[in-house]
């Protein structure tokens, strides 16, 4: 018997996917900044550029994660139940609400509305997820994380926690920088206008 061998490149494929997504976001942001401020603006405002890119990236991730869970809430309830953290009666309510909070926060972040508040909220959610995953991992529960609905079948574990820590870091960075980033409206000339 020769069982079908697993595609060994699966992880490399995922990694490539992530790199492509980040690359596309960076490129789109660069184009956007170029049209707003010209090359000088792009060149002089690396932090601002990075800030905008991270805003799109984190916002996009949350929109996708939220939308996937909204699409299939039934699976998500099972995933929440597997964490054995919430009281049973609350599982459905949580599955109804949480994806929408993610979606709204992600959308607002992409649109650049209330970046600080959104980043803080996302950071808080990330900490919550990290605790949930951490306790499941520590208890040796071998479960799906339910992180992106059924799109991603990854099990909870160190890899998922590292991923979440990266998101948490981005959210905290956005939160930290939000009040330091000058307004876009007048390009690089408005560098001393803080809001």
């Amino acid at each position: 018997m020769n069982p079908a061998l697993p595609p060994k490149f699966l992880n490399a494929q995922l990694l490539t996917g992530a790199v492509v997504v980040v690359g596309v976001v960076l490129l789109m942001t660069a184009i956007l900044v170029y049209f707003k401020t010209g090359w000088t603006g792009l060149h002089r405002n690396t932090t601002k550029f990075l800030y905008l890119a991270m805003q799109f990236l984190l916002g996009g991730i949350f929109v996708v994660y939220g939308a996937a869970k909204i699409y299939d809430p039934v699976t998500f309830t099972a995933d929440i139940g597997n964490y054995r953290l919430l009281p049973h009666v609350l599982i459905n309510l949580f599955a109804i609400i949480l994806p929408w909070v993610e979606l709204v926060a992600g959308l607002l972040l992409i649109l650049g509305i209330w970046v600080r508040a959104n980043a803080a909220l996302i950071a808080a959610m990330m900490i919550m997820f990290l605790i949930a995953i951490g306790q499941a991992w520590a208890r040796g529960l071998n479960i799906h994380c339910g992180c992106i609905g059924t799109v991603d079948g990854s099990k909870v574990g160190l890899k998922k926690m590292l991923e979440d820590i990266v998101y948490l870091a981005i959210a905290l960075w956005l939160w930290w920088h939000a009040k330091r980033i000058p307004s876009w409206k007048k390009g690089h000339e408005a560098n001393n206008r803080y809001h």
Partner: protein
Amino acid sequence: MQSTLWRSLLIVVLGVAAGLTVNAVRWDKGKDGISRRLPYITPPKPPSVATNDITLSEAKALWDTGTAFFLDARASADYVAGHIANALSLSVEEFDSAYVNIAPMLAPDSIIVCYCDGVECELSHQLVDRLQQSGHSTVRLLVNGWTVWRKAGYSTRTGDQP
């Protein structure tokens, strides 16, 4: 700082309102025909019906006497990373293609022990269903099989060979 907090709370309120509203009005159904609208209060779990579950010692006895086929329901990658010695890989996700290779070895009345990993793992349950649909009557299930087997220190293998 204060406005950040209030705004965060407002975003949560927005999300809650959107979630509750959409759940109240959505009418779409999943692939299995189950409505995606959820009851706000989680209904209690139905009591689990009698199953084909066997205990670890029963499984070990079957393994020792060599009277049962052990089938690994997990993905082939997990099988390669480690499995119960002499178990065959029959990933549920590739059931249709993989079953063809395994079927000649199984008589309709051979005892089959399915396992996967994790208390909540659905794969072995699915495999039991699929095998029963394929006409096997004596299918057993070792819940959380890989973990309990390994922890008991029984014989395991790695690689794609049984």
